[in-house]
């Protein structure tokens, strides 16, 4: 472990002060499942942990009627997937939260950490994107909001400044007849990093696709929102042919890399398959039914 100091502020103000004074090698510590490992393996220079879990603003979650869902940035995954409101209205968040690491990782890992860590393969980001999440941020200069689709800028890079803190994530109330689904592909069945992951959100008008959002991970330097796909299927009657044709767009939309987890060809094939599967499941959910 690198030579780190540990701070446990009890207010946002205090936390920001520590981060500002310490400079960029001070890191927010949420669940620590990324940042503690990075500090130990010395993949990043880290000299201080600023543990935010005693700050009430970043912990917990709640649904406020029509105003939608707010999740504290450092709320651990297990609290999220055990929340009945989220289960009912935002099932794609459950799809994501339930597969991050194993149960012991989920006891700690947070959405804020997953997002701020900025991994191209992060398993919650595509979901947060298709649900039109916004990030509420506070820094030395006050508050700001960023759409999650804009949040990541490169592998491990985000728009967040080193002395800013992500406070919470906000999601509007899902529209009627809408559904969402996240699926990742891994060679094992648990405990693995996505070869490709896809989240789809769809709003139906009878059999017509009223609107949709599709995001993909592990196929580019950041998770991507694929507007081209939505434009292609929007306003059309849902059919397997339509999805097949839309899936062909992936050939030109993504240029994934070759690495130990996958080849470009396999990733494009998987993207198409996961797109179709998430779409079909999202449609099932838009009817108020459950997917297996």
């Amino acid at each position, binding site marked *: *472990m690198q030579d780190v100091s*540990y701070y*446990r502020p009890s207010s946002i103000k205090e936390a920001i002060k520590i981060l500002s004074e310490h400079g960029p090698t001070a890191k927010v510590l949420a669940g620590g499942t990324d940042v*503690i490992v990075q500090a130990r393996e010395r993949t990043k220079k880290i000299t201080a942990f600023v543990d935010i879990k005693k700050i009430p603003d970043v912990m917990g979650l709640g649904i406020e009627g029509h105003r939608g869902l707010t999740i504290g940035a450092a709320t651990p995954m297990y609290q999220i997937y055990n929340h009945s409101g989220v289960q009912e209205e935002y099932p794609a968040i459950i799809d994501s939260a339930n597969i991050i*690491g*194993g*149960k012991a990782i989920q*006891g*700690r890992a947070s959405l804020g950490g997953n997002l701020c860590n900025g991994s191209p393969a992060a398993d919650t980001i595509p979901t947060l994107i298709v649900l039109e999440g916004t990030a509420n941020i506070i820094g030395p200069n006050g508050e700001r909001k960023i759409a999650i689709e804009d949040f990541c800028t490169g592998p491990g890079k985000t728009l967040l400044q080193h002395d800013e803190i992500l406070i919470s994530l906000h999601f509007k109330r899902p529209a009627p007849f809408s559904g969402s689904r996240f699926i990742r592909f891994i060679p094992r069945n648990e405990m693995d990093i996505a070869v490709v992951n896809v989240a789809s959100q769809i709003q139906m008008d009878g059999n017509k696709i009223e609107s949709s959002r599709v995001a993909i991970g592990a196929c580019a330097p950041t998770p991507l929102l694929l507007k081209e796909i939505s434009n292609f299927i929007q306003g059309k009657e849902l059919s397997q042919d339509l999805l097949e044709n839309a899936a062909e767009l992936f050939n030109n939309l993504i240029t994934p890399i070759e690495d130990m987890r996958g080849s470009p060809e396999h990733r494009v094939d998987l993207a198409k398959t996961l797109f179709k599967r998430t779409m079909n499941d999202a449609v099932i959910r838009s009817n108020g039914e459950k997917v297996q």
Partner: protein
Amino acid sequence: MSKKIVISTDLNGDITEFIADERDSLLDALRERIGLTGVKEGCNNGNCGACAVLLDGILVNSCCVMAAEVDGGSVTTVEGIALENELHPVQQAFLNEAALQCGICTPGFLVAAKALLDTNPEPTEEEIRFWLAGNLCRCTGYDKIITAVQEASKSMQKK
């Protein structure tokens, strides 16, 4: 040399004060500073579950927790899951079902299985397998571990 810090935590039911290095993980502190070597290190990066403990009642990997974080909290390790003078049903089931071979993964499995049964007293086979997927065992092929958790669930129902 990094700083030494004093930590006070409810450890297996007793308030315990100890000195740790500021850069110790909870796993480092439990093993090297306190001597609770029942908590095992298999990977030191969250991948194997051998170091699993309960932190404020929640299952975590102690290698992915800083020791400093548990100040004022509570920690339960494998050394603390037995009932007074009697093994926890899950420990007894592991013995009866021969669910350990080398035994290095056992402490992590026991703590994880206890956490499962605390929240879901009658899990299905699928739920047990999913819950334990963060714990690696290389000796047993998991068969007898799954059976032991099923056994423990049954024996806890009887009580």
